[in-house]
C-alpha cells in the first residue's frame, strides 16, 4: 500500500449555494472524481453533480418493511394457531383479519428503523472525527458557507495543479486539509 498522503485534500470555500453547485459541476467535468461538497442545508441536484447516482436508502426501507410485515404476521400466526391455540369467541385460531393491524404496525416499525439505520450506515455515521474538521473555517459549513473538496486520493490530484484549478473557480478561500 502506498504511503499515506499527509494531505487529505484541498478545500475551497464559497459564498452561495449557486456558486457551490457551479463549482462542483466544473470540478467533476474537469475529471476529478473523488470530490465532495458540503452545505448547511440540502441542495437539490448537488449529489448528482459530484457523481452520486445511486441511493441505497429506498431499497433498505423496502426490505425492512417486508421483513417487518412477515415478522408481524408470522408471529401472530405461530403464537395463536401453532404454539398455543386458544378458542376465543369461537373465532378460528388463524383469524387473519384480526392480524392485519399488528402486521401493518410491524411493517411501519421495521421500515422506519431501517430508514434511519440505513441512512446512518450508508453515510458512515456516527463518525465524530473527520479530517475536514481540521480546517477551522469548516465550522461555517453548518451556518452559511459552502465547501468543495478534492481528495488527495483522486487519480488526477496534484497539489499545485488542483490548487490552481480550484482558484480558477473564484472561491472565497482555499485551504489544505491535513489528514
Amino acid at each position, binding site marked *: 500500500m502506498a504511503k499515506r498522503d499527509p494531505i487529505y485534500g484541498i478545500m475551497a470555500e464559497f459564498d452561495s449555494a449557486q456558486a457551490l453547485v457551479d463549482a462542483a459541476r466544473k470540478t467533476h467535468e474537469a475529471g476529478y472524481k473523488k470530490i465532495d461538497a*458540503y452545505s448547511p442545508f*440540502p441542495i*437539490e441536484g448537488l449529489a448528482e453533480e459530484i457523481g452520486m447516482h445511486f*441511493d441505497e436508502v429506498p431499497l433498505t426501507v423496502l426490505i425492512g418493511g417486508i421483513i417487518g410485515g412477515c415478522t408481524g404476521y408470522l408471529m401472530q400466526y405461530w403464537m395463536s394457531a401453532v*404454539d398455543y391455540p386458544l378458542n376465543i369467541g369461537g373465532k378460528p385460531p388463524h383469524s387473519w383479519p384480526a392480524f392485519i393491524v399488528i402486521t401493518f404496525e410491524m411493517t411501519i*416499525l421495521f421500515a*422506519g428503523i431501517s*430508514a434511519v439505520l440505513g441512512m446512518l450506515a450508508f453515510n458512515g455515521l456516527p463518525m465524530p472525527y473527520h479530517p475536514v474538521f481540521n480546517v477551522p473555517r469548516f465550522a461555517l459549513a453548518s*451556518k452559511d458557507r459552502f465547501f468543495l473538496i478534492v481528495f488527495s486520493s483522486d487519480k488526477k490530484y496534484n497539489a499545485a495543479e488542483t490548487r490552481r484549478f480550484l482558484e480558477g473557480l473564484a472561491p472565497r478561500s482555499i485551504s489544505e486539509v491535513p489528514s
Partner: protein
Amino acid sequence: MPEQYKSSTEIQRAPVIAPGHTFGTVTEKISAIVLTRPATNGWFIGFGIFFLATMMMLYAIGYLVLKGTGIWGVNIPIGWGFAIVNFVWWIGIGHAGTLISAILLLLRQSWRNSINRFAEAMTLFAVACAGIFPAIHVGRPWLAYWLFPYPNTMRVWPQFRSPLMWDVFAVSTYATISALFWFTGLIPDFATLRDRTEKRWVKIIYGMLSFGWRGSARHWHRYETMYLLLAGLATPLVLSVHTVVSFDFAVGIVPGWHTTIFPPYFVAGAIYSGFAMVLMLAIPIRKIYGLEDFITERHLQNSAKVMLATGLIVAYGYGIEAFMGWYSGDRYDAFTLWNRLHGPYAPSYWALLICNIFIPQVLWIRKLRTSPWALFLVSGVILVGMWLERFIIVVVSLHRDFLTSSWGMYYATRWDYMTYFGTIGMFLMLMFLFLRVLPAISIFEMRTLLPEAEVKE
C-alpha cells in the same frame, strides 16, 4: 426532492419568514436561545411549578401502586375512568405534531418548517404522558410487560384478536417512529450547535449527538430520502393509531361505542385538539423568545383554519351519532342520546357542544384568526372540549347501558385529578427543558426557506 421546502410561489400571503433574514441571522437567532441566552427567573419559576406538579403525579402513582385502583373513582359498571379518558386525550394531542411534520411535508406545505420541531417534541411528550395511563390502569403496573409477546414460563401468548392488543403495538410503534423522526431531524442542527458553541463540554455533547454530521452532499441526499420515507411511513401510521384507539371502543357492543363513524371522527378530533395544543404552546413561545419573525401570522392563521376544518368534521361526527341514535330505531342507542342530553352528566355534554362546536366558529372571523390572544383562548376552550368528549364517550356510555340493574355513577377522586394534572405538569416541564437545550425551530429547514437557498441549473 428539496422542492417540498420551497416557498417562492407563495408570495401573495403573509410571509412564512420575515424579510431581511440570511442564513447567518436565522442560524444565530435560533441557536442563541440554546447557547447564549441565560435562563431567566421566569423560566425557573415555570419549570419549578411544573416540576412540583410532576412530583405530585409520581406521588399519586406511588400511592396507587401501594393501594390499588380502589383509590380511583372507577367501579363496575364504569371500569374505564379518567385513565382512559386522559390516555385518549393525550395521544390525540400528539397527533398534530406528526401531521405537521409528516403530512404537511408530503403536501409540500413549507410553512410547517418553523413549527415542526417543537410540534414533534410536543408529540413525544404527549405520547409519554399518554403511555403512563394504560400502564397504571392495568391494576398491577409492575406486570404491564405482560402486554408484549415474550417467551414466558406460563407458555401463553397475548390475545392478538383484541383491539387492546393492537393498541399496544400501534402506540409503541408510534412512540418509536416519532422519536426517530424527531431525533434524525435534529442531527444537522446538533452539528450547527456543535460548531457555534464556545464551551468545550457543550461542544462534545452536541458533537456526539450530531453523530459527526458534516453536511456532505451525499449525506444530505440519503438524509432527504430517509426523511421523506419516514414522513411517508408516519402518515398512515398516525391515522392508524387513533383508528386503533377508536377500535378499543367501536369493537365493543356498548351503546355509544358500537359505531362505524368512530375511526375518522377520532382522527379528526385528535388533530383538532393537537392543533389547539400547538397554538397554546406556539403563542407564548414566539412572544417570550422573540420568534415572531419565524412563527408568523401565517402560521397562526393556517393552524386556525385546520382547527376550523377538523372541528367541523368532529361536529359532523356528533351529528351522525345523534342521528343514528334516532334513525337506527335501536332503543338503547336512542336512550344513550337521551341520556347525554338529559341524564346526570348532561351538563358535560352541553359544555362539550359549546366548547367544540359553537365557540370555535368565531375562527371564521379573520381578525380573530390572526389575534394571538383570541387564538390562545379558543385553543384552551377546544382542549377542554376534547377532554369532555372523551369523558362522555368513556364514562357516560358506560354508566347506563342495557340493564337498569347495572347502572351506576362515576365520581373522580382527588387521586384521579392529581394524576391528570400531574401529567400536564410533566408535559410542560419537558417542554421547558426542551426549549433550553435543543433548537425549538429546525434551523436547517429554515435556511431552505430563504430565497438564497434556490439554485438554478
